[in-house]
């Protein structure tokens, strides 16, 4: 490439790079802010209540939203929908977070081990991942509910056990490519142990992928929670999780649509933020790797 041409191109590329970087940074900032806000609501929820989310009053049931009364209306028991949506932050975000963490833990462990080992272990673990994928989540949910009962931890456990196979698959595929990278191969040649190599080379390199997958998984688990609730395997009866509320609102789609509005909005906003975070992280990673390759 002639020097002239290079001079011509570089400023443009630089500007473009800058733009893209800015955009991804902006996405990241927005999504992180939204999520931080949501978690803040979960932590400081009592400050946001306009009514006791558990207090029911049958004479006030199915009231439409009003500025003076219930902001988002009341449900079939006369409970304040707005306050219940707020109360749902702790449950839903908590379950989603714990479930995602658990899924990541299992998924990363199995995925990395399967990809790292070249021999029999890889075959065994790949099949374990296959089993995980083809195993109906309903059976996992039913067994956990039967043995442990219903509640925050059983539900988080169920969701974690449901989501790990996807994570394991992605991690497996990514690790396969990573372990063939020069620096990893070089490290192996220098006699650096597997465990050390995994911790110093593979896991840090996996981080961006995991971040992205985790953000998407989190979003999916929020949906899965409402599905379990639909099947009667979700959070305990009357618990203000968004899934439960959505499930309760089914009968009132026509007569009291506001019952659906609150939890659906909460789920959509959270998922939107989580997805945005995943995308932002993804974009940042892309721009980084492009920069490295230049």
């Amino acid at each position, binding site marked *: 490439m002639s020097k002239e041409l290079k001079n011509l191109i570089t400023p443009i590329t630089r500007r473009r790079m800058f733009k893209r970087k800015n955009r991804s940074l902006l996405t990241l900032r927005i999504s992180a802010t939204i999520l931080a806000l949501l978690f803040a609501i979960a932590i400081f929820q009592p400050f946001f209540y306009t009514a006791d989310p558990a*207090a029911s009053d049958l004479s006030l049931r199915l009231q439409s939203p009003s500025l003076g009364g219930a902001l988002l209306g009341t449900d079939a*028991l006369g409970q304040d929908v707005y306050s219940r949506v707020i109360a749902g932050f702790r449950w839903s975000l908590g379950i989603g977070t714990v479930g995602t963490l658990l899924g990541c833990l299992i998924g990363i462990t199995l995925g990395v081990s399967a990809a790292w080992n070249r021999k029999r272990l890889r075959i065994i673990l790949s099949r374990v991942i296959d089993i995980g994928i083809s195993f109906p989540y309903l059976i996992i949910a039913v067994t956990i509910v039967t043995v442990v009962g219903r509640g925050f931890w059983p539900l988080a456990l169920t969701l974690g056990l449901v989501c790990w196979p996807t994570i394991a698959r992605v991690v497996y595929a990514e690790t396969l490519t990573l372990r063939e990278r020069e620096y990893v191969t070089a490290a192996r040649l220098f006699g650096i142990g597997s465990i050390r190599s995994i911790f110093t080379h593979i896991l840090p390199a996996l981080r961006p992928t995991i971040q992205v997958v985790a953000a998407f998984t989190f979003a999916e688990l929020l949906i899965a929670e409402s599905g379990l609730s639909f099947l009667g395997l979700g959070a305990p009866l009357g618990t203000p999780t968004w899934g439960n509320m959505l499930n309760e609102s089914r*009968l009132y*789609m026509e007569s009291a649509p506001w019952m659906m509005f609150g939890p659906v909005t909460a789920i959509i906003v959270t998922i939107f933020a989580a997805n945005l975070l995943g995308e932002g992280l993804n974009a940042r990673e892309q721009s980084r790797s492009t920069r490295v390759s230049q």
Partner: protein
Amino acid sequence: MRHKKILSATLSIAMSVLMIGASQAPVSAATKTITIAVPGLPPSQGNPFKEGPGTPGIHTYAAMFDALTRVDNKGVVRARLATYWKTINSTTWRFTLREGVKFSNGEAFNADAVNETIDFLISADGRKTVIGSTELPDVTGATKVSEYVVDITTKTPDAILPAKLAALYIVAPKAWKSAGQDVFAKAPIGTGPYKVDSITTTRIEMSAFTGSWRSPKADKLVLIPLRDAASRLQALQSGQVNMAIAINPDQINAAKSAKATVISVPAPQVMSLAFNVTAGGAVKDVRVRQALNYAVNKEAIASNLLAGKGKAATQGTTPSVLGYNSAVQGYPYNPAKAKELLAAAGYEKGLTIAADITVGSFPADDLIYQSVKADLAKVGVTLNYTTITFAQWLPQYNANSWKGEAFGLSWNSAPRGDASRPYAIFVCKPVGAFYCNAEEDAMVKKTALELNAAKRLALLKEIAVKVTASAPALYIVEQIDLYAVGKGVKGFSAANRSIAYENIYVR
């Protein structure tokens, strides 16, 4: 707004014309089909012995089978396949059968048919079915007296055998014998108004059995299971089904605005939380049990959550049941008294109890349970629910292995419409007793052996007084069954959950 309606109406008409043209279903104008959305089909399909006498079996079997008797909404035993009955001795009842009745495969109904059914019931296989083991465990055999007269014997004297036999559907003897119970389940044959064309998990199709003694007014009957109440109503609103069974009280207005008629029939069933008294703990104290009963505003629950169609429960039975005692007032809402009783029992600072419940079995049961919890919280009682499935409920119930102090249990008098059925649950059972009061137990036993109707009724009413006073359960509401009958559907009626399918037709 109106504009849009006209537009959508035109479009929908255009579309439906197109759809009729497109769908190849050979529905001729002459065929009158009744399609009904039910909450579920019997899992054991056309084998009536393997289903309990309640829902979902009864919605299906009422169309294809008949029992010897039926019990009406007032608890009176009526003729069905038997027209007359009397006691011969203390353990034998003689039934005179209806003449000229045919099964849908042409077999004649007679004493032999009854014999065959009862022979199966008392066989080893029959004793493994719900009807043989739980509903009619004391029936020991049947003897043919003449073509249309049969004697049925019981282990111990049984005053209400005719009512109990309402749970026993008579199957076509030859078909049953040659097919065996498994094949019969796919092609059941009875004396009812419809005969089965096909059974799958998602559909039962039947066509009219014109030779039935209850000859139907329509040509076809289709039952579609839609487990979700919202889906059932949507199916009705969109005109895909003619009727929806078991809609929710909060759907009444929506159903009415779709020009459907909503029929509410009081169910002979009281929703309650039974206390695990034998396990000890706070609920062992009768004052605590009474306090919990006083603390719940049952009237508010019935009027708000059951749309005023259900009533607050005063005792374990409902007015339509034989043995209901209208003098028993139960526990009217009185939180002050509840607090007083709790304090007297040593729980002035409050109390925590756990209860295992199943939800989705009755209209609005999830809301009702939550309301009970909220009311109890007002008197300082924390009630923690664990929702379980019926599959989890049953083993704990049979063995009384409950971890908590209470569990969901309904006082069901159906199908015999007699108070003895629920009371027989609250006795000192040898296995799995959760409540045992020697005095009440003796009275229940005495009633079972009493053959004099008047004396028996007096005993049942006395039991109602005693049992209600000792509050072995938190009585909540008298349940209802809601049927949404679509536009143009005529002749619907149901007694004790048994739908008179023969009278239904579409105009």
